């Protein structure tokens, strides 16, 4: 056999993503290679109003469920044609199914009839997936994004996803309960005409924008990225396709389009814009919401990527293990947490110091705790935010921290992640978990163990900056029989920290079976 310098082509596989949204079920099939490139091979989608009943009555109707099963049966046949393995199919469901009271019945029925296991994603996870897709689509503009502030917005049937980035760094991510189907229902009940719709929206969005303004001034936003079918429809009518991944619509043209169609009936939209009824429904409220957000920014144009949450899922498939994207994601999660801290005026230097020490301890104890990178990220976020309860009151601030975190959104973290982080913050001082702590008790066992371990580490790290003087630069860990010794690299006097450690190491000792000593 002779040696060959043949370059073997990248290994490809075909994967599918099905997205069960509030007004349609859609599928995209793509070929991805191990270098993270993907090519869209096929797509399909059919309208079904899953959201309508859920947002009004809270339940998926029998009819909607039947239609969904029928559509999925067709998709199943398509997947067979592509010979896609079961593990290469991901089915996600967003707000409509997420909020349905009978969702478990539905998920079970879908599984029995079609074999699909639906993964109900949460608002923040939706954010993460959309962000991945957008980042991919506007890759050519990455440099510009890193120099200015931007907003990514997607108006859906049930929710509106908003992400704000300061010089490319995530400062806020929200899943607002503001969606075209929901609005339609609310407006139907109380208002009549198009102007009423506008008044209703303006009022609703004003409140939202006040919250957003607290995180980042809306008028500082230069890049306005609008995701979703409605935005794409507008772009197809009045935009330009100047780049491969996205279109651009001038603000003036967009506003003219909105003004023009605002007074249209559904029938007029269908005939004037040459779209289907399904596309026309919700178009006006969606574009109005976009316009109202656009109005409060200084962006001169809308950037409309050719992607959706489905491409985000594809990318998470393709890049699941890619270091580059993981790193990018991680950075955005931390940026989002820091921004939350700023909002509550945290002691940033202390937070960063504790974060550094906690991570160092986590890394050096890898063999003892056996936790993964995700847990490390949760520890990092908890370290950053452990003291934000001081914003309310110093006394019992750990409880306030828990409350604030539990009711906040942090980019990239699911509800269950947020819950873990809030509990870690809660247990960074004072009482250890006990059977009277109902919120802790109600968690799953693995979560409780994870919280115990991470809180124990956080307590040690916090103690090592007890004076808030940031004197310890780092440490080397040495394990003895039943004692862990931290050989610290410090400047000045660290007796306060040593003492603090003595006071706060009980939980660590109980959890890991070691005493900790700082030298």
């Amino acid at each position: 056999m002779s040696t060959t310098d043949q370059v073997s082509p990248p290994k490809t596989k075909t994967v599918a993503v099905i997205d069960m949204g509030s007004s349609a079920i859609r599928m995209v099939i793509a070929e991805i290679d191990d270098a993270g490139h993907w090519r869209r091979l096929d797509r399909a989608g059919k309208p079904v109003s899953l959201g309508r009943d859920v947002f009004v009555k809270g339940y998926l109707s029998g009819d909607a469920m039947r239609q969904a099963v029928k559509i999925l049966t067709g998709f199943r046949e398509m997947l067979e044609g592509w010979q896609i393995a079961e593990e290469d199919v991901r089915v996600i469901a967003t707000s409509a199914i997420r909020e349905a009271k009978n969702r478990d019945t539905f998920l079970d029925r879908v599984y029995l009839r079609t074999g699909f296991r639906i993964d109900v994603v949460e608002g923040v996870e939706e954010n993460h997936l959309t962000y991945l897709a957008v980042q991919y689509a506007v890759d050519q503009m990455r440099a510009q994004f890193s120099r200015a502030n931007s907003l990514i917005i997607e108006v859906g049937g049930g929710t509106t996803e908003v992400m704000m980035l300061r010089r490319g760094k995530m400062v806020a991510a929200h899943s607002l309960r503001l969606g075209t189907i929901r609005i339609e229902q609310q407006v139907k009940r109380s208002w009549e005409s198009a102007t009423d719709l506008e008044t209703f929206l303006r009022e609703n969005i004003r409140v939202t924008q006040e919250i957003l303004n607290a995180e980042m001034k809306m008028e500082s936003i230069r890049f306005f990225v609008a995701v979703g079918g409605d935005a794409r429809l507008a772009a197809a009518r009045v935009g330009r396709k100047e780049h491969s991944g996205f279109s651009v619509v001038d603000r003036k043209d967009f506003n003219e389009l909105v003004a023009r169609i605002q007074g249209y009936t559904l029938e007029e939209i269908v005939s004037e814009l040459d779209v289907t009824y399904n596309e026309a429904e919700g178009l006006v409220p969606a574009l109005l919401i976009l316009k109202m957000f656009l109005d409060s920014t200084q962006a001169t144009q809308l950037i409309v990527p050719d992607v959706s949450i489905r491409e985000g899922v594809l990318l998470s498939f393709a890049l699941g293990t890619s270091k580059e994207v993981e790193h990018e994601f991680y950075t955005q999660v931390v940026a989002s947490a820091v921004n939350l801290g700023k909002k509550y005026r945290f002691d940033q230097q202390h937070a960063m110091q504790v974060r550094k020490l906690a991570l160092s301890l986590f890394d050096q104890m890898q063999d003892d705790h056996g936790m993964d990178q995700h847990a490390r990220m949760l520890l990092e976020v908890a370290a950053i935010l452990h003291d934000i309860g001081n914003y309310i009151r110093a006394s019992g601030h750990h409880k306030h921290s828990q409350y604030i975190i539990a009711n906040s959104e942090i980019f990239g973290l699911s509800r269950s992640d947020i819950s873990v982080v809030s509990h870690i913050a809660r247990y960074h001082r004072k009482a250890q978990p006990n059977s009277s702590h109902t919120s802790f008790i109600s968690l799953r066992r693995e979560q409780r163990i994870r919280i115990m371990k991470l809180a124990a580490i956080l307590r040690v790290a916090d103690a090592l900056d007890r004076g808030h003087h940031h004197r310890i630069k780092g440490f080397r860990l040495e394990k003895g029989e039943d004692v862990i010794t931290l050989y610290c690299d410090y400047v000045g006097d660290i007796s306060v920290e040593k003492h603090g450690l003595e006071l706060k190491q009980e939980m660590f000792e109980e959890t890991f079976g070691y005493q900790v000593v700082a030298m």
Partner: protein
Amino acid sequence: MSDADAPRYFSRDLSWVEFNARVLEEALDEDVPLLERWKFLCIVASNFDEFFMVRVASLKRQIKKGTSGVDPSGLSPETQLSRIIARSKEIITAKYECLWNDILPRLEQEGIVWARTGAYSGSQRTFVRDFFNREIFPVLTPVRHEEPGALPVPGNNRLHIAFLLEPDEDSEMRRLGDYAAAEEGAAGPTPRQGPRTGQGEQEELLAVVQLPPALERIIYVPEQENRITFTLLEDAILENAQQLFPGYRINRQGCFRVTRDADLGVDEERDEDFVEAMEQVLESREYSDAVRLSVVEDGDRLSERLRRALGLDERDVYAKGSPLAMGDLMPLAHISGFDHLRDEHMPPMPPRDLSQEEGTSFWDTLKRRDVLLHQPYESFEPVVRLIQDAAGDPEVLSIKMTLYRTSGDSPIVGALEEAAENGKQVTVLLELKARFDEQRNIRWAEHLERVGVIVIYGIAQLKVHAKALMIVRRESEGVVRYVHLGTGNYNDKTAKLYSDFGVLTTREETAYELNLFFNAISGYSAIPALNRLALAPVGLKTRLLQLIDRERRRASPEAPGLIMAKVNSLSHPEIIDALYRASQAGVKVMLNVRGICMLVPGVPGLSENITVVSIVDRFLEHGRAFYFENGGAEEMYLSSADWMPRNLDRRVELMFPVESAALKRRLKHVFEVTFADNVKARVLQPDGSWERAAKGGRESEVRSQKVFYEEAKSYAQAGEPANRKEFSVRRKPL
């Protein structure tokens, strides 16, 4: 604008009748070989059959319903109908004159003789009697109508013989016949008692016998070598009819045929079992309203009786000319020997773009370049082979295609079955509504389903007329889709007779959009927005109008612009209006329209820059191609759709751009040759008549179909690899 009196459009149906007149011209043309002329006579007849079943029936329905209003040409349904009938009768008369005065005598000179009843020689008579007794008599079922005015219910377009009978009181045979019939209980008439006594003479009995469709119309009578003598099935029956009615005297006998309304739709609401609903339609079509009665007899006693029984007007009777149902007589053109009476043989050539380098696979060639197939000059066989290769290829994942009027024993259907058996996903959209072939379609639909093919029985309310094939193959570099898009059906038989275009390509965007098209017609997906392809009835017409309008907007005195289009029919008012506007802006519009053309060309102020030519030659012109000069950035499209309301508004059709520069050049050349044709081209005049293109001397003759064939042939010969050292062996990959 134009003269106020001149119509803005020609009448659709009258324009069609003129098309059939052009077909007849081919039969009249002495330059056309004799058996080909015979064939054209048969085509004229079968064209009329379909026309009466569908179009005339529809006009009659409009009149019956009292639909008021006029068609785009300004004619009421009644005026249209009377003009159609008058012109059709002229053509039919000319057809029979041509047959009797010209074709039959010439055939006889060549040794092809029609022996008719009443004119048999002794030996012929014996042969025919034996043949009748042996082959025909056992399958005949005469039906006697005892009541005066009783309604015979002859099936649609079935050839029948009617008899007026009178009891032969003296005949012993009659009673014997009664016994025989009673004992056999089957064939033969069933005379119980004759008509009421005392009314004998006036009240003739009507008896009707249907010609068994299973028997050949043409019966060859033994003859000496180099000669052919044939007689027709009805001759043999008429000759021996007395045997059918023992005890009766035949006063009158004659052939007749009833054409009925065939345009009965399927109940589209009945989605749950479309196949069953279709079967019912086929059945009821047999006995729907009559629209035409064709009769051959001396006098009119039979025809009058039948006419009244069928509720037809006198003008609906076509009584001049024998034989009836000439469409069935086509096989005579194919009798062995007599090649000098036929067109020279033109076997399809290996396609020019596929003259492949030794050792490269079909798949590789297609990945390297797009391929144009210009049938029937070039062979359709590569498409069949592609499907056959795919069926056994382990890398192929799936095959999707539309099937519309495919022949039952088609090798394509066989390959699809094999593919399904090999575990590939095979999806076939089988159009059951292809008007006259439904019966055949239903049979294989069921067969295909049995072997695991996903069969889609069309789309409610819309006939799927698009012609598309996609083979998905997973190769080492990723998925590759092999696509064939064409203007003709996937039918290996008509591919040898119809001139069509097809493109084979692996272009990613085209393949992706075609995939979306299949998703939509398979019910997986809502109708997608398409950029490259255009889909009727959702965007194709709009796209066409935009393309025509773009040419108009770009027109300037220096660069007036050019539109060339080739369609079977042009009858969509919106398209015609757009072409008028383009003409008025100075755009040169050259149209090659084989059949119906409602556009009025050459009218100053309306359409002075538009010319229309029609080509009727040995191959049926069937391709649809559209060219736009577009200020030099030329665009070429192919489509399954004609420019008719039914295609653009009520059918699922595809139009696709030809993207390869080489293919565009080839198609442009096709247009150039077509418009240079001065042998088989007729030019449409502003008054609706058609005139032959001005012919030069023999040397400057251009007969486009011949040119295309010669070109295909010379490319094929040039492309043949000389000095083979090795065979390129085709084997299934391991």
